[in-house]
Each structure stands twice: as C-alpha cells, then as structure tokens.
C-alpha cells in the first residue's frame, strides 16, 4: 500500500490536493481537498441586489459569464421577472457561447493537453511542413537554452505517453495556435461585454445596451474563426489521438449519476428547451429524468464547517459558518485524511442523496437522450470512430469526458452564429428592447440553474429590504469535487479515481488524467 499525494494539482482553476491509496498498481481509495476558502456567501450578505452579480462573477475568473448570468437571473426571479426581453436573451446567449468556446479550447490544449502530449518528444519528429518545422525549432531552442520554464520537471519519460512524435509535434503546434483562437472567442465576448474576463454589460432586467450592427458583425467574424478551428483542428485532433489512448475507456467510471441545469436559451426561455437541455441521469441507466433546483442539499461532516451547517439543508439554509478547520495529514508519512478534510461542502441530489457528476459528459449525454439531432450524430460518429458503435455506455469513462468536451465545443460553436442572426432579425423587426426596470424593493426568493462550461451551476438568493438577505452559489466543482457526505459516500472525482491504474506511484500521470478529465 502506497500513499500518493498530489499538491498542487496544476492546470486547473483554484487550489486542489488529491490523496490516493494505491495498492498493486491501482487506486484503492481517494480524497480530494480544496485548499482555498474565500467566504463569498458571507460577504455577499447585505449588499445591493442590482450589483450583486459583479461580486458573483468573481467566484470564477475562468467562467465569470455563467456566474454573472445565474446571479442576474436569480435576482430577476426573486423579483418576479419570469422572462427577459428576447433580445436580452440573445445577447446573453452570445456572451455565453463565446465564453464556452474559449473555455473548451483552453481546457483541451492548455489544461489537459500535457497529460497526453509529450512536448520534448516533438524533437524526434520528422516535420511535415515548414510551419511544423518552425514549431519544432522553437521547442528545440527552448530545450537547448536549458530554460524549460513551464515544461520542466514533467514526467516526460512516463511510459503512458503513447503518441508518435509527429502527432506530438502537430498537437504542440495546435497548442500554440489555440492560444490565438481562445483570444478570438474572448474578443467576441469583450466586444459586447467591455472586457474579458469580468464582463460589464449584464444587469438584472436584461443587458445594458443593444450591441451595434458593427459589433454583431465583429462577433460573427471572430466566432467563425473559432468554429473553423474546432471543426478543422480540435475535433480532428481528438479523433487522431483517441486510438492511442483507448485505455481511457477502461477507468474513471465514476458515480453514474449525471446532472445538467441546461444552458443557452431558445425563445421559450424554458430550461428543458435549451440547446443543452436540463435533465438528470441516475444510477448509470441512460434514461432521461426531470430535475429540480430545490433538490440540492449540502453536508459538512467532512468539510471545515460545523457538522450542523450542512446536515442535508437547501443551499439557502446552509451558509459558511461556523468554520472548524482541522489540519490535513502531512504530505509525507503514512496518514490518510480522516474526519474533516475539505473546504468544499458535499453537495448531493434528492432524497437518495446521490452524488452527481456534472460537466460536458452530463450535458452531452442529456442532449443525446433528449434526442437532439446534433448531439445524436456527433456522439454516434465518435462511438463509431473509437470502435464502440451503438454503445454510449463506453462514454461513462475518462474517454467519454474528453470526447464530450470536444463534442460540446462543436455544437456550441455551430450555434454561436445562429444567436447573432437571431439578434439581427430582432433588430430588423424593431424588437430592440434589452432591459426592463425592476422594483428592487420587493421581497422574494429566486434561483437560477444555468451550466458553466465545467458543469451544473446554480445560484439562489433571498432578497428583502432592497438588500441581499442570503446568497448561495453551487458551482460545478462543488458537485464533482464533493468530499464524502455524512454517510461516508465518496464524491464523483473520488469515486472516479478508485480503480485508476498507477504504473509508477512516483509519477502518477494516470491520476492527473482522471482528475483533469473533470476540468476541476
């Protein structure tokens, strides 16, 4: 039995430690620990509801836009606004589509890529084009300078790197190209929102202004380039590397429960009608279930909060006090986490207290089960490409998580320009209202579920006396990186880690693969 601790888990947003018990080359047990606490729900109390979304979007600087959306929407529903003006709905979709596009590109190449692509091995490749040769020369210059910078000290000699040198080189080139592409998506967002990250055009009641025709055209041109990249580079890259890593289908199964609140509103603004519709999947049975925002519950017996803080309560009744910090076992030594070991609270769903996996795999499976033609075709094509035609259960794995992110990126970018066209059509019809004034003196409780790129995200708020009485956010990593609940049931990442092979406990590359597949 060996203890493997990875702290910090790099190439993620936030601070994370993973502790694994490895026996006979396989993970037998696992614990995830978020090692940062900020206290948003404490300092958001008592603030002005009109500006609370500016606080909320700072929960995540990688995905501020869905936090902004959920925050304005939670306030709107608390004040009795069922729908926003249609043109505001479309502007918000355009913002979200740009954010999703940049995020998935960044994840595929820059956060996840090094787990599969061996950068020093590019020097062994026969460069097929002058462009690839230029990239190879640049890598060579970096290696020969002796200053490897961010590439230093990785497990590059690990036997788990399977790609031929030519493919390593090609994808390293795309890593650099993708740095430009993510800028194009961020620029599309910034042109409407003022900057990226941390946008400035949302407000409860709609958006601050109707974009100009020029801005919409700019958005279309940027997102067209992003779509071209996803179609001609990113999706082909997935299909090119997948055959070398088919073992990814054999581990990382996880809890088999999936949840998505849905994202990207159609005209109805009905969450079951979204481009990625709302829904749930329970106990590994690929059947679509309805889900409710009110069925989220939180537990704190293993978190650094008093046991009674959670105890299965609704997010609005939980809070983040009192804090009861207890030390983690040192990285070295034999001790494993016990009792309280995480700043994250355990989030569970429904009366069965199910741990739920959230993220593109959930979103794509739910769209597939809902019969969305784009999802159906892409999933079926991918299954055929990896030799599992007609068997979507093979996607309940790390392979499925990686593939689903690329599939989702494609569906999203295919539709980004449709939103822009809808907005132009509304302008043509004179339907240019983007804001309705709300009565902020009203008392009420509101909620919004709208997925972030990395999965189900919900905000809840209670307003009274023109102030935020209570605020609660349940981000995707609170679902995926839940610690054990009060009954001792593992969270989704912990469960997915069990069974992960570890060829060399000194170089736990496979553990990184399982963790990164969730985009924590």
């Amino acid at each position, binding site marked *: 039995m060996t203890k493997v601790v*990875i702290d*910090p888990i*790099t*190439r993620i947003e936030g601070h994370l430690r993973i502790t694994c018990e490895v026996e006979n080359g396989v993970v037998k047990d696992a614990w995830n620990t978020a*090692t940062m*606490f900020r*206290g948003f729900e*404490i*300092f958001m109390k008592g603030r*002005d509801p009109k*500006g609370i979304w*500016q*606080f909320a979007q700072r929960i*995540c600087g*990688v995905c501020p836009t869905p936090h902004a959306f959920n925050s304005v929407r939670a306030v709107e529903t608390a004040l009795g606004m069922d729908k926003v003006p249609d043109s505001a709905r479309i502007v918000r979709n355009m913002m979200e589509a740009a954010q999703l596009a940049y995020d998935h590109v*960044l994840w595929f190449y820059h956060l996840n890529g090094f787990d599969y692509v061996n*950068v020093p091995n590019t020097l062994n490749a026969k460069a097929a*084009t002058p*462009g690839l040769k*230029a990239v190879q020369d*640049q890598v060579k210059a970096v290696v020969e300078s002796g*200053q490897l*910078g*961010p590439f*230093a*000290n*990785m497990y590059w000699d690990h036997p788990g790197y399977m790609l031929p040198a030519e493919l390593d080189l090609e994808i390293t*080139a*795309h890593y*650099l*190209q993708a*740095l*430009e592409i993510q800028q194009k998506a961020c*620029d599309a967002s*910034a*042109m409407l*929102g*003022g900057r*990226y*990250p*941390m*946008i*400035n055009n949302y*407000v409860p009641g*709609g958006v*601050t*202004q*109707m974009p100009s025709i020029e801005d919409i055209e*700019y958005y279309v041109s940027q997102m067209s380039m992003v779509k071209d*990249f996803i179609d001609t580079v990113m999706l*082909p890259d997935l299909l*090119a590397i997948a055959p070398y890593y088919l073992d990814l289908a054999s581990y990382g199964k996880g809890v088999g429960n999936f949840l998505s609140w849905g994202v990207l509103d159609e005209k109805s603004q009905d969450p079951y009608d979204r481009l990625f519709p709302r829904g749930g999947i329970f106990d590994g049975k690929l059947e679509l279930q309805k889900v409710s925002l009110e069925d989220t519950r939180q537990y704190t017996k293993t978190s650094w909060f008093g046991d009674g803080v959670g105890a299965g309560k609704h997010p609005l009744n939980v809070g*983040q006090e009192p804090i009861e*910090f207890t030390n*983690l076992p040192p*990285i070295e030594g034999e001790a494993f986490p016990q009792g309280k070991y995480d*700043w994250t609270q355990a989030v569970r769903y429904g009366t069965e207290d199910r741990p739920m996996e959230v993220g593109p795999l959930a979103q794509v499976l739910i769209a597939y089960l809902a019969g969305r033609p784009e999802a159906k075709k892409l999933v079926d094509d991918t299954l055929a490409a990896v030799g599992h035609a007609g068997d979507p259960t093979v996607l309940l794995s790390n392979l499925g998580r990686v593939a689903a992110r690329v599939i989702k990126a494609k569906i999203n970018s295919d539709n980004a320009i449709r939103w822009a066209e809808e907005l132009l059509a509304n302008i043509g019809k004179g339907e240019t*209202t*983007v*804001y309705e004034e709300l009565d902020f003196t009203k008392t009420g409780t509101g909620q919004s579920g709208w997925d972030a790129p990395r999965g189900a995200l919900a905000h809840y708020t209670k307003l009274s006396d023109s102030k935020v009485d209570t605020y609660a956010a349940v981000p995707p990593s609170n679902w995926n990186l839940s610690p054990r609940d009060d009954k001792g049931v593992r969270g989704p990442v912990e469960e997915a880690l069990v069974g992960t092979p570890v060829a060399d406990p000194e170089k736990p590359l496979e553990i990184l693969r399982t963790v990164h597949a969730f985009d924590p």
Partner: protein
Amino acid sequence: MEHEEMSLIPGLSRRDFLKSCGVLASVIGLSGPMAAPRVAKALEQLAKRPAIVWSCFQECLGCSVNLLQSRKPNPANLILKQISLNYHEAVMAPAGSQAEKSFRETVDSKDFYYIVEGGIATGIPNACTISGKTSMEICKDTYQKAKATIAIGTCACYGGIQAAAPNPSGSKGVTDFLKSEGISNPTVINSPRCPGNADDTVAILLYVLVKKALPELDSQGRPTFLFGQLVHDNCERRGHFDAGEFVEVFGDAGSEKGWCLYKVGCKGPVAYAPCPVTRWNGDISWPVMAGGPCIGCSEPDFWDKQSPFYEKAPGIKLPGDITPTQVGVGLGALTAVGIGAHFIGQAATGRLGKGGPQEGDETGSDEGGKR
C-alpha cells in the same frame, strides 16, 4: 486537416517586436525614431530569459486568464521567447512534488522576478495552502528572495474581493501582509484592476527588466505611468458629462446615444486607471463602452468603498457647479499626479502617440479605433 491556413506559431516579426517595444520606449522616457530599436536591443542582450515565479493565492484566476489575452507580445511569444515562466500553477506541465521542485529550484536561485495574483489569507492561514504551506509562508519567503515583486490584480494589491467586509478569511494584499510581518517598507509594484490587465503586467515587467529600476509609484503603490489619470478624464463619454447628458435608465434613448453613465453608478470620476486609453483585450473595448458603469476596480477596497455599483458616486457636483478639472483633482485616491505625470501617462499609453509625432513610427495599434 488544414493546418496551413493559420499561422502555426504566432511569429513575433521584427516589426511586431518593435511595436511592443514602442509603448515601452515611451514609458521609460526614450523618445524619437530610434527609441523602439534601443529597447528591443536591450531586451535581446539579456543573457537568458528572465525567470518568473507566479503565485496564485486567494484568487479566481481572472488575472491569469487576462494574461492570456496579451497581444504585444502574445502569450506564445511571451512564454517561449521572452520570459521563462518557471512556476505558474495554471500553465505549467508538472504537478505535485514535481511542480514544487520547479518552484524550489527557481526560488533558491534568487535569480527570478516574483508575480503575485490573489490575496494572502492571514486571518485563517489555512484558507490558502499550496503543497502544505500557507500563502503567508510562501509569499514572505519568496518576496525576500526575488529580484522584484509585482502584485497583479486588486486582490494581490489590496486584498480584493475576499477582503470585502467582513473579510471572512482575513485576506490582505502583498504590501499590507509584508508590513504585518515586520517588513517596514516593502518594495512591491501594484498593478490593480479586476481582473489584473495583461498589458499592465507586460509593461511593468518590461520596464523593470530594461530599466532595472522601479517605475514611479503613487501613494497606493501603482505606477503613475499607468494609473496617473482618472478614468473620467480620458472617457470618450466625458463630453456628455460636461454637457449634462446622462443615461437615466439602461436601454433608454441616452443609452443608445452613448451618453454619460454617471447617474447609473459610474465610478470613473473617482477611479485612477488607463481603461479608456489602452482599453482591454487588444484595445477593442472597455467596460464603459459596453454601456455599463465603471465599478472603480483599480481602487483599494473598491468592493466596499465604490459599491453600490449602480448608485451615483457620492460627493460629485454636476456640471455647472464645478469645472471638469476640479472633478479630476478633487476626488479619488491620493495620487502623486502632476502635469508631468499626466503627460507621461498619455505618452505611455499611446494616447498622444497614435498618429502623434514622437511615436508615430511604430506605436500605433492596428486594432484601435474600431468604433
């Protein structure tokens, strides 16, 4: 696969490189047609790429995401050709003990520049730990070994959002934290805004590397060449403020005409930042251009002091009662702004440079002036 259609490596041509140096040349007081080549030469003469250690403490990663939006140089060139980013948790390949090895090797060499993103958790030290060490331990030790320290974003400068009342974790900016550890006069360059801005980061870094000196700082530790002017003074909607033309409600006729956002909460009259001049994301837009009020994110404690964000900033008299110049001088944070600083600020940010005689050769921005 059609890869050939796009530039595989975003090459920094000689011309692009000179362009990026053009801004810097004006910042550090070099002018005339030879300024940019001189800065380029100075950078190329560095024996090796300067090593950077970038710590993420209590943060949302927004500052790093904006760093990826850098254009001059773009992130690929920055990382591969100009700096050696030895430690940045969101970017680096290695994890765990191997990441820690990269950290130790660089920090122990004492030959590196230190960039901090995020606040330091001092009330609950374990509210931020990396590799079992608290943000307090890491920040103090690394600061003492670094050649220079830059705080990026309002969290690292002043504590930021998690320091909003009641500051549950006792979050502090780097300078305040170091002072509380008994370091009486810490040398930290503050580059606030929320998120921290890529162009600011690059400009400050290049300034320190080329001039081997600290830029002039205001009383809040901010370089005056970037933060010497009020947002209000450079705002393209300033004329509407002076003319008494205001947006009353979002989406109204004034909103369509791009009138002043002061009445819907704009904090431009009290915030010192170059947003209207350098703008964001490669010069394409900035928060006021999106029709939303400035939230004053470059100011210390702005989450408490500049909110509510959608209510009028207190204590500002409207046109007719006060001259525009008095608005600029009379309000906001304490800064060492004089006429000279204003001038340097304008030159640095290209405002005077665009089409102007002193930097007319290479400083202009191709992407500028979209609207």
